[in-house]
């Protein structure tokens, strides 16, 4: 079994485990490459249809092309999509100018929390990866979260032999990370192999492309001439700088992501 197939099979097993063990699971879809690959894996696991709703946290600061892509895929793949925003914070004028971490906390974490609570989701799948960022490198595949949404990273339960913690803490939910062990390059190679459609922002236009997609004020494109998936794979093989170097969140504070994620951020 080759490397990508091994990763794929592991992820499929995890996805099926979620379906078998949880009452009301959902999948977070940011429209980015990782969660789109995850969505593809779900369609594989469930033989063509995705039996759980997708959740999109709309900060209203996303690049418009992402929303177009989202709606197109939802139509074509017949997906159930739940979109939610933190309306109050938006009405009060929340934005990166109020502080980047505050903005992420209000427009992402809090909006996400409300969706989970309102829909009573007991498991949420996310397309995060270890190699993205320091605090994510210490995650579990199944990560139980209490009612306050917090990540008890110093008290994570053991996860051995693919026996996952599937018990939902009272009032809480379980975060599931089916592609935790994939790398950025794995994801692109998989997109190439499977022919998964991704949003056009990843491809170079006028010498620039997005390597990582977040909200428009906090994501910078990189210099690149890669205009196909194959060229992106080729480019990444020679790339030294890590993926999130273009993300403003991580620069705000040495442990910004850890702090955000302790409070329930993705």
């Amino acid at each position, binding site marked *: 079994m080759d490397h990508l197939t091994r990763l794929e*099979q592991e992820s499929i097993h995890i996805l099926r485990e979620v379906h*078998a063990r949880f009452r009301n699971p959902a999948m977070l879809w940011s429209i980015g490459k990782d969660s789109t690959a995850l969505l593809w894996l779900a369609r*594989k696991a469930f*033989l063509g249809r995705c039996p759980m709703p997708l959740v999109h946290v709309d900060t209203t600061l996303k690049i418009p092309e992402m929303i177009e892509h989202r709606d197109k895929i939802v139509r074509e793949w017949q997906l159930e999509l739940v979109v939610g925003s933190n309306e109050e914070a938006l009405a009060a004028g929340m934005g990166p100018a109020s502080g980047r971490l505050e903005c992420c906390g209000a427009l992402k974490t809090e909006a996400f929390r409300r969706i989970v609570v309102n829909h009573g989701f007991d498991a949420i799948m996310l397309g995060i990866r270890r190699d993205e*960022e*320091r605090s994510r490198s210490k995650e579990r595949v199944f990560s139980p979260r209490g009612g306050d949404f917090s990540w008890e990273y110093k008290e994570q339960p053991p996860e*051995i*032999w693919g026996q996952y*913690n599937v018990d939902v803490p009272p009032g809480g939910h379980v975060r599931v990370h089916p592609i935790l062990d994939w790398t950025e390059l794995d994801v692109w190679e998989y997109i190439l192999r499977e022919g998964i459609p991704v949003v056009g922002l990843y491809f170079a236009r006028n010498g620039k492309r997005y390597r990582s997609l977040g909200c428009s004020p906090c994501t910078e494109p990189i210099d690149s001439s890669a205009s196909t998936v194959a060229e992106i794979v080729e480019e990444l093989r020679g790339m030294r700088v*890590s993926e999130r170097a273009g993300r403003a969140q991580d620069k705000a504070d040495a442990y910004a992501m850890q702090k955000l994620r302790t409070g329930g951020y993705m």
Partner: protein
Amino acid sequence: MTAETTLVVLGHVDHGKSTLVGRLLHDTGQVAPDRLEFARKRSREQGRDLEFAFLLDGLSEEQEQGVTIDFTLVRFQAAGRPFVIADAPGHREFLRNMMSGASRADAALLVVDASEGVREQTRRHAVLLGLLGVRHATLVINKMDRVDWSADVFRRLSGEGREVLSSAGVTVASCVPASALLGENMISRSAHMAWYDGPTVLEAILAHQPAVSPDDTRFRMMVQDVYRIGERRLVVGRVESGSVKVGDTVALRPSGERSRVVAFEGWPGAAPGSAGTGENVAVELADPLFAERGMVVADPSLPLAPLRAFDARLVWLGRNALNVGERYLLRLGCQETGARVLRFSRVINPGEVSETVGTASLPPGFVGEGTILLDRPVVAEEFAACQALGRFVLVDGCRVAGGGIVCGLSPEMADESFGTRADLSTGPAGIAVGRAERRSRNGHHSMCVWLTGLSGAGKSTIARRVEARLFAAGVQVYVLDGDALRSGLCRDLGFSQMDRTENVRRVAEAARILVDAGFVVITALISPFREDRKRARERFGEDEFAEVFVRCPIELCESRDPKGLYVKARSGALPRFTGISDAYEQPESPERVVDTGVLDEDAAAGAVLELLAKRGISGN
């Protein structure tokens, strides 16, 4: 491309594991410049030169305290081969994290600080490697700079380290003196240790290969789920050993029923006609068998009898000790059951040299060998025969709290008959007094009427009325009342899901004995879970069991509240109260529904008597 090799780096706290991994990544040019810059900056803030460990220890607490809290995995390429390296924590407090990181390793690097020697976690980790099934290791004697690059120290410590590993059943592939901090003997030969002519750490790593599964190659698959697509039922699971193809005959365990593989289902496009180890498949079988999660589909030649007990070797990772006799949840593959340790034959502290302790409990970080009793039979094999069917975890409350391997199958306790419908009193033909003889003397059939419903719905009242009527008519009848049994037979049980399951199991078993003895048994207990009631039903013949749903709106039950329980539950004084803070799963197809919101007591009892009359048991 060659297959990936996963290595776990283990050893006592502070012996230099993270530094070693960071150094390897750094010296082979596999660290992103922005990440290196970050580690450098954090090191400088602490008044230090570059701490290579910071390349792995990503949490703020890890960097501030200079200790690894949780494991991480990193990719590593060398000589064109892909590796995954798990950097495990060495602090005793984080043993559960070490186990999590090591659980899928092919081989290990055991790091020993030359100035400290073999310590408690060095020993413990070595012993646990044996339990994890990791068979090969490299010993690294690190911090050689601290002992003046002494060949004597190296010889002494490598001897001790080898001893520790080999007595845990781990083969020592190589033993390297190094300084991770200074990069000596890491990727190139050290000028300080000219006396050493063995491999560098990198060369030692390259000598490790992906572990070859010791399993025999017969087909085994755990049923993870069953998907329905239109009329088709697809059995979903992962091939754990061997392979399977269209046309193969397979056996479904524990039932032992056989069927043939008709097709595989896949997306996008048709699935191939065969599948190998590690693949997740969706299989269509020729006969619509009763397949469900937890069963095992396997080569029919595999003697996979369900077990009621097995001998195991396990490590405890809970916050408090595991106690003999206490009930935990056991998960083995997709199977799940309540389980308890019957007895330990040996409990050891793997951190100390041959330290054996009392066998009444298993403290955190200790290893025990003993017999585990299962509430429900489980299909398992010895770890040596099949890894996937030979290892299990124990769950305490909401958390995985221990893990172990199956070492022996306790055949004397094997339970071949999963349904256990057999006549209990069978003996030599002709002289046995059986169920039939008892029924014929009583002049009536014997069976179990299972009343289920919310607290206050009227189960006990109905049961008592029916009992009185039947008794007066000369029927051998007996009521098993949930509340009454909880003060005796089930006094050790609480109201967790697992305890409720066990409660139902015991009452069903008691009922079965009474039915065997010729009685009409009426059980009155909430029995909130469908699955448990289904299991209860499976203990009886088809004409020996009738489920009666005593239906009553919860508002009405609450207004009756004969025992004042609802008031308590609402105030929070009674946690896990069915209908309020715990689920009640209504029966889907009971033999009878008795609606006590509409019927009075007499009419409700009448409905049950009518049901019994149809089975030839008359209250007149």
